[in-house]
């Protein structure tokens, strides 16, 4: 045995957290700031950063980060009912192809294709996943891993929707500001909207299903209905990201169903920390710019994401955001045993 342990680490909530936990007790600007700062900082960062970097290359990177952040948020929402998806590429791809298809074949304008892709794509994904709602854990993950591959091969084999060439020259956004701010607005809306949602009564049911589905069933709640609703909401966000990306690139092809679109958001969530949505956004906003900076590595980027994923899983399983949150709310000290 090692030497007897003399000290242990104790974590205590900061006084200011205890005082500002309920909004009625705010008594100073400092406490107000303590509550507001973590919310205002990311919002103002997101709103101001396109003005700072402008268009061009890094403007594109901001746009990518936002779309992948949307995918990560959608993953996190699914995970909060206990459905672990390994197929964000399914949502992304379905959204891309619905938007691209309507724009290419029917010449629908962009402000029509994106909402249609969001809702229609979400409906398609929900109908696809309803038969497997009963599956738990790894089995659900495997279905979601296989489905995008299946679609990829179907498009290749049937040569529908442009086949291996994809659909080219779709309508672009009128200007890049619009694209950037639509994506940023969606990220902010989903981030704070989902956080609020999970603290409403509705969210308690969702979290209950994740913790113990049978107890929730015993409470007389139809968990399949709740799961289907969550899948719809989550798929809508994923399809929206796909539709945005389609019109940004003015192209949709089989790459929409590629493994990258699953691994990148997943790596973002694991790095940032799952379960509170802020972590997913933080993680993707670290990973996507990092990967753009490392674009010279080419094919190794996928390997790099995976390496980050493994390291984050092994070393910091709680995620960066939880770590920072703990430091913000609590202090640590050594006390003698």
């Amino acid at each position, binding site marked *: 045995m090692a030497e007897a342990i003399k000290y242990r680490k104790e974590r205590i909530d900061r006084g200011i957290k205890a005082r500002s936990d309920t909004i009625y007790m705010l008594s100073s600007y400092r406490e107000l700031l303590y509550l507001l700062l973590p919310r205002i900082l990311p919002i103002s960062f997101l709103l101001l950063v396109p003005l700072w970097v402008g268009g061009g290359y890094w403007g594109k990177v901001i746009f990518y980060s936002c779309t992948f952040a949307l995918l990560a948020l959608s993953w996190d929402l699914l995970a909060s009912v206990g459905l672990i998806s390994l197929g964000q590429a399914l949502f992304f791809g379905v959204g891309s192809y619905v938007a691209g298809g309507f724009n290419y074949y029917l010449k629908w304008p962009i402000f029509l294709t994106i909402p249609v892709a969001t809702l229609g794509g979400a409906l398609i994904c929900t109908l696809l996943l309803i038969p497997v709602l009963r599956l738990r854990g790894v089995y659900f993950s495997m279905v979601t891993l296989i489905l995008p591959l299946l679609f990829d091969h179907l498009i290749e084999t049937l040569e529908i929707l442009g086949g291996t060439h994809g659909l080219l020259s779709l309508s672009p956004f009128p200007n890049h500001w619009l694209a950037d701010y639509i994506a940023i607005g969606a990220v902010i809306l989903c981030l704070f909207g989902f956080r609020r949602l999970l603290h409403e009564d509705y969210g308690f049911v969702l979290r209950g299903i994740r913790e113990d589905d049978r107890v929730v069933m015993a409470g007389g709640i139809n968990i399949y209905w709740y799961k289907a609703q969550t899948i719809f909401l989550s798929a809508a966000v994923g399809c929206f990201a796909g539709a945005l990306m389609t019109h940004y690139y003015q192209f949709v092809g089989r790459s929409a169903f590629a493994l990258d679109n699953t691994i990148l958001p997943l*790596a973002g969530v694991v790095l940032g920390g799952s379960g509170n949505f802020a972590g997913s956004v933080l993680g993707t906003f670290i990973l996507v710019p990092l990967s753009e900076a490392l674009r010279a590595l080419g094919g190794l980027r996928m390997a790099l994401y*995976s390496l980050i994923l493994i390291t984050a899983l092994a070393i910091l399983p709680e995620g960066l955001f939880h770590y920072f949150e703990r430091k913000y709310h609590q202090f640590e000290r050594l006390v003698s045993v």
Partner: protein
Amino acid sequence: MELFIYGITNSVTLALIALGFSLTFGISGVANFAYGAFYLLGGILTWVFMNQIGIPYFLSAIISIGMVGLFGFFLYWGLMLRLRGLAVNEVIATLATAIVIIEVLRYLGFSGFTYVLPEFIKGSVQIGKSWVDYQRIFLVGIGIGLIIFLYLFTHKTKIGLSFRAISQNERTAISLGIDSDWTAALSLSFGSALAVVAGLVILPLGSIDTQIGYDILLSALAVGIVGGLESVPGILVASLILGFGQIVVATFFKAQWQTVVTLAAIVIILAVKPSGIFGKYKELEERV
């Protein structure tokens, strides 16, 4: 007759591919999504030993089987041990490991016609109206041999029985004196080594392409899921169904439909009976 010969070889190929995967994921319950990557890694290691270091074939085959087996063991001991019990994190971790291995190998350029493993004996023999090369006959023989070996291993030997024990009920297994971490690590190691064995038998039929790392994983998943992950007879039946299905589809429709059929089979079986045709152990855990 031709259909029958191709069907049999294809089925046995699928069974060979699925054996190692089923040993780890099905029988001892450790998800090894790096299976296809190990298959690829084994083939490439053997090639490197033979052509760049100049070790004779059988020695380099044995060395690569051993190395990948050890790699599997340390993958468990270094990484999976921290995630044990969180099945989904295990899947994410092994899938990420697979991507690292495959993408690094792709980056190093191990693809194409230069990378060919030798056949055991060159030449072919005429059966009925069609020519079958000796390698395919070896493949069928080795495949059937390994299935029998695996059945005996998991039903008669102490290690094999403990593999099945930790999959059925880990706590009870621990209380009976089975070291579950050690057993799980061994099963991952054995499964990885089996992947290399399958690779050494199957890869000489074509050239090495890094993409097969993903394809092999899919085939293994398909056979495992359709047959029922923990059952050796299940693997046999599933690989016969899928093997003949693929050949029939490829003969009467287009070759690309093969993959579609495989993937669709996985999704349908998962939706209808997730434990597979022969699976029994996990019927209560997998769905509500």
